[in-house]
Each structure stands twice: as structure tokens, then as C-alpha cells.
């Protein structure tokens, strides 16, 4: 089910109402069934995949719970079987075409015929998200960071809970299982806070992202040969804003829906374009994925044992824990490998791998240039860090949106040529909208970070201003509410 639809709103109202009306004991089964219904509204035949992944990891985790530390081989075998099932499903449904294409490319180099017959595969909605969630569950059980849940419905809810099923946030068991188990009693605050987040989410998605989409499509449909460097910058920023509003909008709605039932989800975004470094950017963008990658991929690859599960990472590939624990080379290699996999997670295409490596280079360079920043004071100014971070993170989005890597490289080349800064090829409104969005995002960050928290003197104005704000948001959401575009992250 797509969030920006009347079907979903009707579903949500019915589910939230019944959730609070039902006796506490029935609520878990009710959410589990409602979540399966939610998924079935996309394609019911793919429910079996969600269930295979869910049941397999439920059984494996239970078995891991029953074994003791002396049975190391058995425990490893259980963990590997969980990884094989989840990664196997992901590899088949998401990466088969990519693998075959590359094998065929190699065949072509040798002049022989490659694989010609492959089945038609539909990418199941949310598979990248729920498989990561079930993998983390098995790994946590293996590491004994959690006690495997015996109640299947409760565990099923953790995996399939509809607000996060198709595009995250990617939850850890210790973040929600206790909440689902305890199921707090009704408070009016749950409803109001939930609606507030849902309204913000719809505003970002249907008012901003969906109205930016035609401009982005128009710009990226222009042959790259005709673009100027300023066009490329504008397109990078415009798409950067579109994907941010789209995905942050989704996350707001997911968090709001869970809140309506008294469940708190962790935040997934925190003004990423206000980051003053690339490390900070990844602590603000898709936080649940970057922290997952860190804890389940980067740290193990770097040879670091994850010890304290209760201190959930705030995202980002922080390496402070790695000091004295691992060699420098291993750390660097892990960084690049992790980022390449992170790229590949987004899509079965070399363009995404390139995007991952691009970010790895940015993080790596930032680390290596630390001593320069310490010596040249001006480089330590926050505004310089912010400027560099936003410019480079925006142009890093280009391979996400172009048709091919070669187009991406042509666009990057234009950025380096002074001649390419002498003309413009896009419609004036595209530059204007980009500039306004840049201004809007910057002002909202400054307001929320520096003005509102210190405006206690004007506390009496908060309620009337909130009413005005919500009135405008409701009018705009009502006007633009329609499922005209999917959420961009659904394709990942």
C-alpha cells in the first residue's frame, strides 16, 4: 500500500481505531494481520516471501537461543543459514539480472555466448528493508545481544509492522520489541503527535517532492551534451532536494503511524544538508541504514567486535572504536568495501556502486585531511565545512538519477570546465525553484536549531503560529494528495 493514497488513509483510520478498541492481548495478532493486509495491497502473491524470511529467522533465532557457547560450530551454521536464506532471496530477486549482465559481459569479451534465458523477475516491495531487519535479528541472537522472542506474532510484528515494512526505518529488535510487548495504554498525545508527523510527511511528499518531480524529469531528459555546468549544479541540487523530501516524508509518515499506536520509532533524518562534514552527513541521512551498515558490516569487516548492543549507534561510519583494534589498511579497505555494498544495496547497477565509492572517497579524504584542517584555521570554520559537504554530497546524487554512468561522467566533466559556466540551458523556473528550496531548507534548519529553542519570550505566540502552520499544511496536503508518484526508495 502506498502511503499517499485514500486507501491507506482509510486503512490507517480503521486499524488505529480497532487497535485501541481491542483488548491488549489481541492487539499484536491484529497488527500482524493488518501488516500482511497492507503488504498484500501491493501484490498478495509476494506475501509468501515476507513470511519465508520472517519464519526462517524466527526459528533460527530460537535455535540460537537454545544453544550454548560450547556449540560454536552449530551456532555459526545457524547464522550462516540465516544469511544464506536472506541474502539468497535478495540476490535472486534484486541482483539476478545484474549478475547475469556482468557474466554475459565477460562472456562477450571471450567471444562466446552468455546466459540467454532468465526468468522475468519482479522486485518485491521492501525486500531490501525487511531482509536487513531479519538479518540483524539473527545476528543479534548469535551475538547474544537479544533473547530470541518466543511469541511468533510479536516477532512477526517486529518484521512486518506496516509503517516500516516497505521503506524503513530499518529497526533493531531492541528498539521496538519491548514496546510491542508492553503496548502502552492510550494517550491523546499519541494521536496528536502521530498526526503531526504524518502531516509533515505528507507535506514533504505530496506538496514538495511530487511537485519537484516534473522539473527533475524535465531537466534530466535533456541530452547531457546541451547542459552547462550551472545546469548540472542545479540538477544535482534539485534531485538532492527531491530525494530528501521524498524519503524524509516517508520516514515522517512511518514514525507518525507507529506513534498513533503508541510505538516510538527512531529518527531516520536530521537535516542532512546542514551537515558540516561527510561523517556528520551520514549521521543525519537515512540514519537507520548507515547505523545498520556500520554495526553489521563495517565493524565486522574491520575486525572489530561489537560489544555493547544497548548503545545504538547514531548512524554514520564512525571509526573511533577502531583505534588500536585493527590495522590502518584493514580499516581503509573495509571503508571502501562497505560503501560499495551500501551502493549496491540501493540498486543492482554499477552507478550505485560508483555512488558508494564516491562517498567512500569523500569520507576517506576527510579523514586524511584532518591534519590540514588543523593547520589551516579557515578550513575549520563550520561554514566552509558545510559548503564543501553540501556541494559534494549533492553532486554525488547525479549517478542516482542519470540513465548511465557515462552520462554521469560527462556531467562531472562539465563541472570542471570554465567554458561550461557561460551559458544556461534549462527553463528559468528550474533555477528559481532550486534556489528557493535551498533557501527554504537552510532557513528551516536555522529556525529549528537556533531560533525556536531560544524563543521562550514569545511562547504565547507558539499556539497561534502552530495553528496557522497546520492550517496551511492541511490545505496544501488536501490539494495535492494523490498517489501520482511512488516513493523513490521503494525501488531500492
Amino acid at each position, binding site marked *: *500500500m*502506498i502511503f499517499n*493514497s*485514500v*486507501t491507506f488513509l*482509510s486503512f490507517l483510520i480503521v486499524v488505529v481505531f480497532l487497535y485501541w478498541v481491542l483488548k491488549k492481548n489481541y492487539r499484536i495478532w491484529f497488527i500482524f494481520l493488518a501488516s500482511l493486509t497492507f503488504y*498484500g*495491497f*501491493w*501484490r*498478495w502473491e509476494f506475501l509468501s516471501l515476507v513470511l519465508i524470511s520472517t519464519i526462517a529467522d524466527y526459528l533460527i533465532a530460537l535455535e540460537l537461543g537454545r544453544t550454548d557457547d560450547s556449540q560454536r560450530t552449530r551456532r555459526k551454521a545457524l547464522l550462516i543459514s540465516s544469511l544464506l536464506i536472506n541474502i539468497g532471496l535478495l540476490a535472486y530477486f534484486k541482483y539476478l539480472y545484474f549478475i547475469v549482465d556482468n557474466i554475459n559481459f565477460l562472456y562477450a569479451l571471450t567471444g562466446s555466448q552468455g546466459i540467454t534465458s532468465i526468468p522475468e523477475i519482479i522486485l518485491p516491495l521492501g525486500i531490501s528493508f525487511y531482509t536487513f531487519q531479519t538479518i540483524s535479528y539473527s545476528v543479534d541472537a548469535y551475538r547474544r545481544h537479544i533473547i530470541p522472542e518466543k511469541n511468533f506474532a510479536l516477532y512477526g510484528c517486529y518484521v512486518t509492522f506496516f509503517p516500516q515494512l516497505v521503506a524503513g526505518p530499518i529497526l533493531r529488535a531492541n528498539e521496538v520489541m519491548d514496546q510491542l510487548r508492553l503496548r502502552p495504554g492510550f*494517550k*491523546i*498525545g*499519541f*494521536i*496528536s*503527535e502521530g*498526526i*503531526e508527523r504524518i*502531516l509533515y510527511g505528507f507535506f514533504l511528499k505530496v506538496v514538495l517532492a511530487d511537485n519537484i518531480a516534473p522539473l527533475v524529469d524535465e531537466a534530466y531528459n*535533456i*541530452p547531457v551534451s*546541451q547542459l552547462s555546468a550551472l545546469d548540472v549544479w542545479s540538477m544535482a541540487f534539485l534531485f538532492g532536494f527531491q530525494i530528501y523530501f521524498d524519503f524524509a516524508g516517508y520516514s515522517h509518515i512511518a514514525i507518525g503511524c507507529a506513534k498513533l499506536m503508541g510505538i516510538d520509532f527512531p529518527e531516520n533524518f536530521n537535516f542532512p544538508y546542514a551537515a558540516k562534514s561527510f561523517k556528520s552527513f551520514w549521521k543525519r541521512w537515512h540514519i537507520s541504514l548507515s547505523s545498520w551498515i556500520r554495526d553489521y558490516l563495517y565493524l565486522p569487516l574491520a575486525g572489530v567486535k561489537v560489544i555493547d548492543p544497548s548503545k545504538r549507534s547514531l548512524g554514520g561510519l564512525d571509526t573511533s572504536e577502531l583505534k588500536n583494534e585493527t590495522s590502518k589498511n584493514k580499516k581503509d579497505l573495509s571503508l571502501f568495501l562497505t560503501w560499495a555494498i551500501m551502493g549496491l544495496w540501493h540498486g543492482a547497477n554499477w552507478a550505485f556502486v560508483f555512488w558508494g565509492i564516491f562517498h567512500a572517497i569523500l569520507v576517506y579524504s576527510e579523514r586524511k585531511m584532518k591534519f590540514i584542517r588543523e593547520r589551516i584555521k579557515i578550513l575549520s570554520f563550520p561554514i566552509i565545512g558545510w559548503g564543501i559537504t553540501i556541494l559534494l554530497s549533492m553532486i554525488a546524487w547525479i549517478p542516482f538519477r542519470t540513465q548511465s554512468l557515462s552520462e554521469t561522467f560527462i556531467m562531472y566533466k562539465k563541472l570542471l570546465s570554465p567554458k561550461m559556466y557561460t551559458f*544556461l*540551458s*534549462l*527553463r*528559468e*523556473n528550474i533555477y*528559481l525553484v532550486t534556489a528557493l528550496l535551498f533557501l527554504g531548507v537552510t532557513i528551516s534548519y536555522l529556525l529549528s536549531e537556533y531560533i525556536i529553542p531560544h524563543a521562550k519570550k514569545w511562547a504565547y505566540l507558539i*499556539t497561534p503560529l*502552530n*495553528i*496557522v*502552520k*497546520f*492550517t496551511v*499544511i*492541511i*490545505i*496544501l496536503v*488536501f*490539494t*495535492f*494528495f*494523490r*498517489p*501520482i*508518484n*511512488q516513493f523513490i526508495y521503494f525501488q531500492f
Partner: protein
Amino acid sequence: MKGKLLFFEILAATILAGVAIYFLNRKQNNFENFALGKNTSSYFASIDKQSIHINKLNQTSLSSLKTGWINRGQKDVIFVLGNSQTHGINQKKKDHTNYAELLFRDFTPDSIEILTHSIQNANLQEHLLSFAYCKEILPIRYLVLPVFMDDLRESGIRKLFFPKLIADNFKLEGQSEIIKKINAEIKVEEVLDTLPNAAREIKEDFASLDQTVQERSELFLNNILDSLSGSWRNRPNLRGQFFVNLYILRNTVFNINAQTERPIIPQRYKENMEALKEILKYSEKSNIKVLLYIPPIRNDVKIPYNLKKYGEFKGELKSLADNYDNVSFKNFEDIVPGSLWGTKEATSFFDKEELDFMHFQYKGHQILSDSLSKSIRSFLR
């Protein structure tokens, strides 16, 4: 306490938003009139209740156009394409008409008749589509085609004006990039074919639900909401109002008015020129003569183009026409004196009126009709 206060704020906002939406919906906008301005009126002529000048290529207007043509003896056709300059008359009085009808009446005694299709802000891709379709259903012998520099800033096919072609799954013949692009834009999905018109419009709003179970529930629930709530039904009008206000705000903030220079948008310019070449190729292949002309523009003030670029544009059109034996080129840019042009209400919050560079008064239509008539007749000989 915090939760209750927030609940109150959202409730109050919902009530206020409901009232605001109710009042916003009472104002029904005609967005075409907004673009034309209050001083200019659209006029699409009919003879004996059958159209000779149409705006949308839909079942009703095409059938009316064709019925009239049959009733009048199925003469050969001079097909006139145009934009709002063709159907818009500044300061229109009761007996005023436009050059499309004047030309029709002028040619009535002849063995050929004038039929017109004009769309506001029509670009050459739309003209290509209209011409390619109409030459299949009417015996077009001559095509009259104005090329406005302003319209080269537009791009794409507005499906709203071509419902019959879309329903017929019409395709342009050819392999050029522009033809592929246009064919892709008017491509009809099979599912859409089975839906009635109203449902088809809603379905386009549901693009992201294609081939999912949710598509059916969404259509069902939206139909219920449409039947229950005028405000819900009227949301396209609200969206239109929103964008018009944004446009006015932009013009106010950046001091943009009708006299502000309108730069060329390279990709759109190129695509429209490609479409023009396709029109000329089609006409050559179908043995149709073409009168290609630079339309009148207000010349008592500085025009809103870069003069060098405008000169290049005219030169490009002329040299293109010179490549074809069946194409005649005329420049009518100076024929309508400044006094016959009008003003329109300003598209910014603080100004009242601004110059109109596109639409002229009835007398201007007479002048253009005379010039066109002379050119067509000399070309016919």
C-alpha cells in the same frame, strides 16, 4: 498537557482549513482566461452550428468540424494552425470576430475552405500532432502555420487537447527523435483504454499504483469521495489556483512583466525546430503546400526578445522554408499597428495592467486576414 494542546491546535487548524477550502472552491477559475487576460476573449467560430475553428481535438469538436465540412460540399481544405492569437480578440464587441472566421468567409465563394485549430501557447510539437492527424481525416491541400518565438519556449504534448488521438492510439510515422518523443508522450496504456473518460483522468493521478491491487480500491474510494464532496472533486481547480498564485508571486518578486526579455530555452527551441522540420517533411510527402509566417508582434515598444536572437530565429525559418519547393515564407511581424494591440491585467500583485504582445483587436484580425488571404491566393496560383 502537551499532547492535548497539540490535539487542539490540529483540530482548530483542520476546521480553519475546511472553511478556507470551502471558500477557495467557491471561486471557479478559468485558467485559459487567466492567460488571456480579462480584456481578451476567446472566440471559436461556427457556421450553421458546426465548428469551423476548434480548440480541443476531441470527439465532439472533430465530429462537428467534419459534419460541417461534409454539409458544405466536402471542399479541399486550407488548414490553419495557431495559438491564442488566432482565437483571442482584444476588447471584443458583439459583432467582432477573428481572422480564422474572416478568412473562412473570404474563401467561401472559392472551391476551397478554411478550417482552423488553435491551442493557447501551442508549441510546434503539438502543431505537428494536430497536422498529422487532421490530414488523415480531411483533404488538406494547404497549411497555414505561424511560428511564434514565444511558443518555442514551450514543450511537450498537453493530452488535454488531444483526447481523440489518445483514445484512437494515434501514432506519428517516422523514426526521428522528436517523433519518438511525441509518440511516447501520447502512448496509451491498455488498461486506460477500457476506462471511461472521467475514470481515465483519475487514473492518471494514480500512476504509481499501476497494476497493484490498490489501484482498484483507490479508484473505488475516490469515486465515493468525488460523489460526496465537491471540495474533493474540485481539487484540480485548487491546484491550478495554487500555481497561478505562485506564478504571480514570482513575477511580483522578480519584477517580471510582459516586457521582460524572454530567453530562448535551447533544448525546447531545438525540439520545436525538429518538429517544424517534420511538419515540412510530412507536407512535402503529402503534396501539401505550406505558408510559413512570422506572426504580428506589437512593434511600438521594445519587444520582449533579444533582438539578435529574434533576427537569427527569423533567418532560420526563412532558410528552412527555402529548402522546400512547397513552402512559402512571409514575415507579418509589423503589419498590425501598435494602437490595435491591447493590454491585459498584470500578472503581479501590485501592477494593474501590462502590455499584451500576443493579442490584438478586431481591426488587427482584419489586417492579418487580408495579408494572409493575399499570400494564400498568390501561393495558390
